[in-house]
């Protein structure tokens, strides 16, 4: 109880402190200290409950909290309505009004009063999520301390609004804790809305026209989700007479009664996780400073949707709602993986990759089989770390070389070796055997096969191929050894660098320790929600093999040293049809002058360009949703 309240309240406190803190140093100190405290507490909490945890409910009938929430909700609503009117986005005002209105009505009319409603519920899944949020979230905050300073040095055109920025980050983290701890749907919804609101403000940070448009896009898309959420709550309250997520899940998959709220919640999750057709908001979120993107993409925000779906997964197995979620997830995975091929903006690639990976997670959750959910949870874990690492390193690279375009990262290993190495680890983590993501994909594939879902198999096999392509091509850009190119300074110092290193460390640690995590955290949770003891998914033999591979990768560089291959090989200029001008970068061109050779990656614009497939995929996804909704809800009514 103590831990939970602490984790919920301490970030809020920090936020308040930060809001009033004057000067950069003060902010820095506050951010670092509270980050240490928060992640420390979360980790202690996790270790305490690592081996044993009987699920715990907390906080029954906290009337005053409800009222507090209501007030905050009301303030936010008013603010949003105001903004909607001011920026002439009336639909935003309307959406906000309707969804909050539903809630107020529920609360005020007393309909929301249900039996034995516990508000907080802790189980192993909550522990996992809480650790991810705390550790990754705080590392991002620490990074932000260093980053925002250089950000404003590089971008003089934007006003320094860090006074608002840092508090928002911490508020966000607090809200995420809220989401994973809440059992009461109303509480959950409250935190859900807070994340929406914070992300809206964070995305609009720079206040440029683009930022404002994108933030509004994020807002209205999430509000649609929120609306669905609100309706679901109303339905639960009125028809099921319960608002406990836990209870609803235990009603079982077959129950007719839950069909409609589950559908609605699924839609809410799809918007939150930026699945097609709602994926545009996440792409737009890139305009914000890097820490925001990292936060939204890796540990928080989008993970909220995935989190809720995993919670709901027992209800999804073999239902139309499940089919909806898996199909959309799988389709999103395929479509956005293909889209990522045509992108050269580092952050945009990452954004597409985030959407794709969430698609995969969501597809797994939608299958509702324990292997699939296992895979989904591992994916959340690994994705959070490596994606955050990637975002932060892209940010650091941007500060160092002045661009986040992948093309400009050509030869990064020579220009800024340290960052290149960090990035290599991040990319490897994203898709390479034997790193985490791949293990999870292995499990996901197995689950897909076992679920007899040919459609998912199609999505997965083609999507993986695309994934392979865009990551590897990034990788190959990084390692190009451009001789005589200037060394650039690694701008990531202090906080930023620490955060990056910590991420890398965690990455490797996770790869080595995931069997333990699986055994003590994931499997018990699965046994519980599926109601039977489950065997371990991945055989010991295979785990050993993967660990072995991992070790090999790390031994290799030293092996080369030992074999002294390096020393015995002589360096020669590269082959340029005989007209290299000696420094490997230039050749004698047709007019007899020195011309710089330039090597670009493949983008295949005409096959995979946004122009070509974005719109069709949105349409297809919409059609899928509409059709399945009609079938599902029609069946339920």
């Amino acid at each position, binding site marked *: 109880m103590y831990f939970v309240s602490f984790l919920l309240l301490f970030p809020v406190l920090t936020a308040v402190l930060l809001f009033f803190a004057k000067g950069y140093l003060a902010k820095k100190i506050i951010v670092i200290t509270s980050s240490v405290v928060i992640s420390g507490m979360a980790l202690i909490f996790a270790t305490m409950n690592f081996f044993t945890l009987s699920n715990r409910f907390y906080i029954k009938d906290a009337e005053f909290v409800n009222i507090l929430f209501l007030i905050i909700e009301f303030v936010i609503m008013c603010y949003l309505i105001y903004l909607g009117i001011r920026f002439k986005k009336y639909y935003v005002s309307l959406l906000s009004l309707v969804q909050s209105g539903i809630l107020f009505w529920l609360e005020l009319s007393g309909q929301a009063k249900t039996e034995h409603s516990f508000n907080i519920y802790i189980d192993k899944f909550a522990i996992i999520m809480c650790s991810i949020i705390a550790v990754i979230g705080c590392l991002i905050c620490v990074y932000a301390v260093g980053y925002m300073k250089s950000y404003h040095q590089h971008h003089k055109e934007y006003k320094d609004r860090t006074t608002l920025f840092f508090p928002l980050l911490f508020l966000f983290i607090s809200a995420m804790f809220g989401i994973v701890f809440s059992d009461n749907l109303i509480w959950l919804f409250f935190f859900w809305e807070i994340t929406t609101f914070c992300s809206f403000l964070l995305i609009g940070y720079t206040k440029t026209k683009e930022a404002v448009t994108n933030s509004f896009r994020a807002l209205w898309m999430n509000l649609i989700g929120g609306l669905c959420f609100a309706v679901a709550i109303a339905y639960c309250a009125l028809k099921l007479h319960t608002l406990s997520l836990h209870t609803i899940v235990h009603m079982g998959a077959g129950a007719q009664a839950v069909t409609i709220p589950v559908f609605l919640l699924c839609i809410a999750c799809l918007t939150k996780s930026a699945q097609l057709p709602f994926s545009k908001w996440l792409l737009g979120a890139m305009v914000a400073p890097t820490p925001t993107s990292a936060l939204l993409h890796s540990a928080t925000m989008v993970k909220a949707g995935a989190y809720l779906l995993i919670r709901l997964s027992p209800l999804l197995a073999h239902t139309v709602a499940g089919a909806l979620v898996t199909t959309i997830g799988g389709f999103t995975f395929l479509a956005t993986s293909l889209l990522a091929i045509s992108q050269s903006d580092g952050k945009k690639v990452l954004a597409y990759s985030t959407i794709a990976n969430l698609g995969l997670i969501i597809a797994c959750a939608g299958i509702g089989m324990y292997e699939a959910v296992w895979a989904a949870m591992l994916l959340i874990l690994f994705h959070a770390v490596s994606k955050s690492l990637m975002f932060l390193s892209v940010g650091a690279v941007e500060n160092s070389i002045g661009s986040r375009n992948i093309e400009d990262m050509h030869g990064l290993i020579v220009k800024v070796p340290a960052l290149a190495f960090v990035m290599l680890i991040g990319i490897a983590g994203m898709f390479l*055997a034997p790193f985490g993501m791949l293990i999870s994909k292995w499990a996901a594939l197995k689950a897909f096969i076992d679920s007899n879902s040919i459609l998912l198999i199609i999505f997965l096999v083609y999507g993986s191929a695309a994934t392979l392509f865009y990551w*590897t091509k990034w*990788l190959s850009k990084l390692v*190009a050894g*451009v001789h005589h190119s200037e060394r650039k300074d690694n701008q990531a110092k202090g906080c930023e660098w620490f955060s990056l290193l910590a991420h890398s460390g965690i990455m490797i640690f996770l790869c080595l320790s995931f069997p333990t995590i699986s055994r003590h955290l994931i499997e018990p949770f699965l046994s519980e929600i599926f109601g039977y003891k489950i065997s371990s998914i991945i055989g010991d033999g295979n785990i050993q093999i993967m660990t072995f591979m991992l070790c090999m990768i790390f031994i*290799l560089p030293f092996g080369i040293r030992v074999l002294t291959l390096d020393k015995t090989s002589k*360096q020669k200029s590269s082959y340029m049809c005989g007209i290299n001008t000696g420094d490997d970068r230039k050749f004698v061109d047709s007019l007899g002058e020195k011309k710089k050779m330039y*090597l670009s990656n*493949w983008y295949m614009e005409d*096959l995979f360009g946004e122009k070509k497939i974005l719109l069709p995929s949105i349409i297809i996804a919409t059609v899928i949703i509409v059709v399945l909704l009609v079938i599902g809800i029609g069946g339920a009514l």
Partner: protein
Amino acid sequence: MIKIVSTVLYLVFAPVFGGLLAGVDRKITARMQGRKGPPILQPFYDIFKLFSKEAIVVDHLQNLFVIGYLVFIIFTGCLFFYGGDLLLAFFAITLAEIFLIMCASSANSAYSSMGSQRELLQMMAYEPMILIVAIGFYIATGSFSVGEIITSQTSAIATTPGIFLGYLYILTIKFRKSPFDLSTSHHAHQEMVKGLTVELSGRTLGITELAHWYENTFLIGIIAIFIINATWWSWIVALAVCALAYFMEILIDNTYARVKWKVLLNSSWIVAFGLGILNLLALYYIK
């Protein structure tokens, strides 16, 4: 025990087998072209020579990556011949390939980088089919484990003929044979010069060649497990099928022009769909 023996046998004899295969390949190809051709042992002469040459690199990272390539190819083969998990083996070989690609692009040279981009494209082209192969085995025999696949009662090919053909299709890419020798080729006279391997020479080139032999042995092994089942004679049939399949590859090599990348990508994906996915569907239907 038998697993360890077969792994060791692979470690020792795969190069021999791969080299001989390359030799026979070159001989048959030459004869098809109306030439006498090199001696059968020529690939071995080549590789010994390569290792005895001066080692030159454009970038020292090349050494690292090329060794990574070899190590993971061998690892893949060992995993396979140990009777391990087929899907993992495929993941491992992907990793190996990525090492090769990084090796090629680390040189920052025009042709080697373009070759690596094309190699990447090829990987993207055959990846779906490769996964489908693994999936097919899993559905047909109930396991990803090679050990279990070869001891199942019926040959996998009985229920996965489409996947088998699809595999042969992408094998042409993997063997780097015309019409799919886009990224590098055994013959000179390619727009890519030597593509991927332009900047490799002497020892490093020797290593890639060696890795290639290991890889080929592994790839042919996969043809075999399509056939092999619990009976002893299935091994003989498997041998014959492998030989035939390889001969077909040589024949195709000599009767096709090199296609362009779009054709490669489209056709592989279509084949993966038409042969692979439909076969999977049928499998589900039967089960």
